[in-house]
């Protein structure tokens, strides 16, 4: 466990010191500012309400889970694997007394921590901005639901990250991984629209699964089904990525 901890601390330090992750978080926060400016513009220009204090964080979430968050997750995941493969810096860790399984798991855990930190920062800032600039619509129930929506959004993002990590272990160049990831993302989005009856199977549709928690009748069966689909795909992607990482020659 101590070895895994060391590997995890190292991965987090690398993420932090590379500053790419920091820039990603700052750009995500810029989305909030931009969103609020649009709402203020709509309110003063057209006299419309726009969004209430707690509707604003949900508006932000619906935008970021389909745009900037997958994008930055891809960048961080690609950098963590393809970046280190191409610079040969993976050897630095691989020649230490730590198994490849622990290195792989530590890298993925660091990516998950990055996603969670970004989501929580987005939640806090969007709530603050919502409370300061918009009409108050907060109830305890809506606060809990907002918090829950942000936290559950982590799961589909983890599956997405695992998919990108698999691609990073499959292709040599980070640029190829990036473009293939975007292509797959777009194809799955289109398939989700064309074959809407099967859309719950697609990773891209699961990004919006937090909506299930906002329905008043709480669809437990549907939530469990979606969760199990994500869990299944997550396990398969993790295992396939680990297999390739373990077989890789450096």
């Amino acid at each position, binding site marked *: 466990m101590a*070895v895994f901890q060391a590997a995890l601390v190292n991965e987090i330090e690398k993420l932090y010191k590379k500053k790419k992750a920091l820039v990603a978080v700052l750009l995500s926060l810029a989305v909030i500012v931009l969103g609020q400016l649009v709402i203020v513009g709509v309110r003063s220009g057209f006299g419309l309400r726009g969004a209430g204090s707690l509707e604003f964080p949900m508006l932000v979430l619906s935008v970021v889970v389909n745009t900037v968050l997958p994008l930055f997750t891809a960048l961080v995941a690609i950098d963590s694997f393809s970046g280190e493969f191409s610079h*040969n810096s993976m050897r630095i860790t691989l020649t*230490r007394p730590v198994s490849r399984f622990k290195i792989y798991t530590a890298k993925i855990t660091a990516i998950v921590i990055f996603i969670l930190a970004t989501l929580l920062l987005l939640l806090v800032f969007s709530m603050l901005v919502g409370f300061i600039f918009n009409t108050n619509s907060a109830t305890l129930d809506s606060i809990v639901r907002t918090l829950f929506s942000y936290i559950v959004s982590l799961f589909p993002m983890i599956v997405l990250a695992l998919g990108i990590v698999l691609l990073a272990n499959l292709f040599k160049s980070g640029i190829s991984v990036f473009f293939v990831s975007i292509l797959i993302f777009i194809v799955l989005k289109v398939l989700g629209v064309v074959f809407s009856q099967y859309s719950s199977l697609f990773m891209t549709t699961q990004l919006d699964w937090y909506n299930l928690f906002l329905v008043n009748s709480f669809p437990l069966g549907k939530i469990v089904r979606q969760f199990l689909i994500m869990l299944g795909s997550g396990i398969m992607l993790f295992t396939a990525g680990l297999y390739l990482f373990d077989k890789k020659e450096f």
Partner: protein
Amino acid sequence: MEPIIEIKNLTKLYGNGRGIEDINLDIFPGDIFGFLGPNGAGKTTAMKIMTGLIRPERGDVKILGYSVTEDYEKAMEKVGCLIEIAESYTYLTAFDNLKQLARYYPDVDHKRIDEVLELTGMSKYKNEKPKKFSLGMKQRLGLAAAILSRPKVVILDEPLNGLDVEGMIDIRKMIHRLAEKEQTTFFISSHLIHDVELTCNRIGVIYNGKILNVDSTQTILNNYATLENYFVSEVERNGRVSSCAR
């Protein structure tokens, strides 16, 4: 005496026919083993297998009794290595680079990091990032990383790459000091024959992926004027055998 490194029937062949075939070697405590061979002979392949960077097709390597393929963490616990080019994270300072590695060893603290930076002559650059380092400085940092954990075994692939004469002498002295004072065993590959002659006390010649001969430097120098003569004679002898077979 129990060997500290046991290489048994090690085989790894690439698509182009190069690689290593059926290598057997025993390295004993206190050895400063020189691994000599021309380019493409299989030195780096053997060393990469020894450090777990690639897997063998057949055979195994045991370090301190632990198999590299089956019990990697245990096998590498007391091993330091530098394979091919000394890699470092260019966005971290020299000190932070070593701090990353230090986390894997409970006994290595900041004092030890300063100590190895001093030993390799990198103290004054400890707060600088390696992206501005020369090849020699990167190599010194790589050597600092290799000896950081006070390893019992140090595996070095071309450790003198990019070093100036002063650097080579410094590193040679450091190797001798560690072998003498801390009983560190070294496994070194180098194409600089003269340096291997001055540094190593046992020498193995690898050619076309096969071990030709292993002998002590002393015995070799008793029979040949220089190590270069011995090396050329071993390679030519093998070359003749190969051409006769064809």
